């Protein structure tokens, strides 16, 4: 969770919010105090620590909504992900694709994005590289191999 907060603060800094290390520490304390069970409480708690003017607050609320609507999907799917891998040979993405569960898929992509440190992306020309890395992290190779094997059986 601290890592998620760290990434979130990076996003805020990108949006020109001045956040000092001591404020980051406050935010960590606040996170520990209120927990993550209630989204609105967490939002207000982090807002009091990190956004210190009216303009910053507005900016903060926007970022929060965008950032944490994603990570929620992520935490839901992580466990399912592992289960699927054990049961099905055809691989987790194939499963999600065939079940058409968009939320799980988004979650998995988000998770892979984290794994390949997508937050370090700087230039638009890097988009292709990162797309490839995310696909590899999702197990595109395995999917392709499985698919080819199925085809050759036929």
């Amino acid at each position: 969770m601290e890592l998620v907060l760290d990434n979130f603060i990076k996003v805020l800094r990108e949006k020109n919010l001045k956040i000092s290390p001591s404020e980051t520490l406050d935010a960590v304390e606040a996170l520990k105090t209120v927990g993550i069970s209630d989204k609105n409480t967490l939002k207000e708690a982090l807002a009091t620590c990190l956004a210190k003017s009216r303009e910053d607050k507005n900016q903060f609320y926007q970022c929060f909504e965008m950032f944490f609507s994603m990570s929620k999907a992520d935490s839901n799917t992580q466990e399912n992900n592992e289960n699927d891998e054990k049961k099905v040979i055809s691989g987790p993405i194939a499963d999600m694709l065939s079940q058409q569960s968009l939320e799980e898929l988004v979650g998995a992509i988000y998770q892979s994005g984290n794994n390949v440190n997508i937050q370090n992306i700087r230039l638009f020309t890097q988009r292709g590289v990162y797309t490839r890395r995310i696909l590899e992290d999702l197990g595109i190779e395995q999917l392709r191999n499985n698919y080819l094997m199925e085809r050759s059986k036929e």
Partner: protein
Amino acid sequence: MQKNSKADSKEPIVKIQKKLFEADYIASLSIATSIYLAEKLGKPILIEGPPGVGKTQLSKAFAKSFSKSLIKLQCYEGLDESKAIYEWKYGKQLLYLQMVRDSLKREHTSLDPKASTLQHLEEFEDIFFNESFLEPRPLLKAISDPKGAVLLIDELDKSDQEFEAFLLEILENYEISIPEIGTITAKKKPTIFLTSNNTRELSDALKRRCLHLYIPYPDASLERKIITKHLPTIKSDLRENLVSFVQNLRKLDLKKVPSISESIDWARSIILLNSGVLDKKTVSETLNVLLKFQEDIEETVRELPNLLKN
């Protein structure tokens, strides 16, 4: 890690809301959360927002509902250490000096050369700067309250920047340095509220040390609740019209839009005038309660037909 804190995350915040409600203050989630965090993290709260939204009222309600004593420091240009932190009791020091002189005279009638008198003086010197000669002002009072007081530093933006710098020590460590005596640390941390109307930008150093709470004008449902809390006898359709009128008024381009305290005053005067409805006549008669500039009143009177339609 956070899973076991599920139960205790929202409960204390709701409790704070309830306690403030009993003290006639309706706190939104953001207000209650910042108070909860301020208590838990031991940090001061900086409250900003337009005038009349209840910034000062919040600290009063907090002191009342947690039965703590409220110590208020009103800021103004030129406010300095001696008015805010401490002052030496000059008169008492003078009296003491006289007593010492008298006793010295008695002992040294055969005024012998300076050497021994000087020695004698050495013994007294330090007593002058003793805590009993100290006149505590609001900040020192709040720090030395054994039960932990509520300190309200009101309208900080009205004070000078130098004074802001004085405050940093208290806000950071809850202690005050007095050069002649040393550092006085709070036995129990006071809850500190700072309010600002944003007439000037406060320094980053100060903001960094505080939690920040912005109280905006309330939305319609919150304003309805606040008015009901303060005027329980108000008829519901009058309240409804009143709130929507004020809400629409805030959308106009006025010099000073009405705040909550003004809309409560307005509701009160309409009830006092015994008119149960919000018609053109009542509104134009009582508009000076709500608006404080002649231009604003004229502008609103022009807009009245539109405002009263809904």
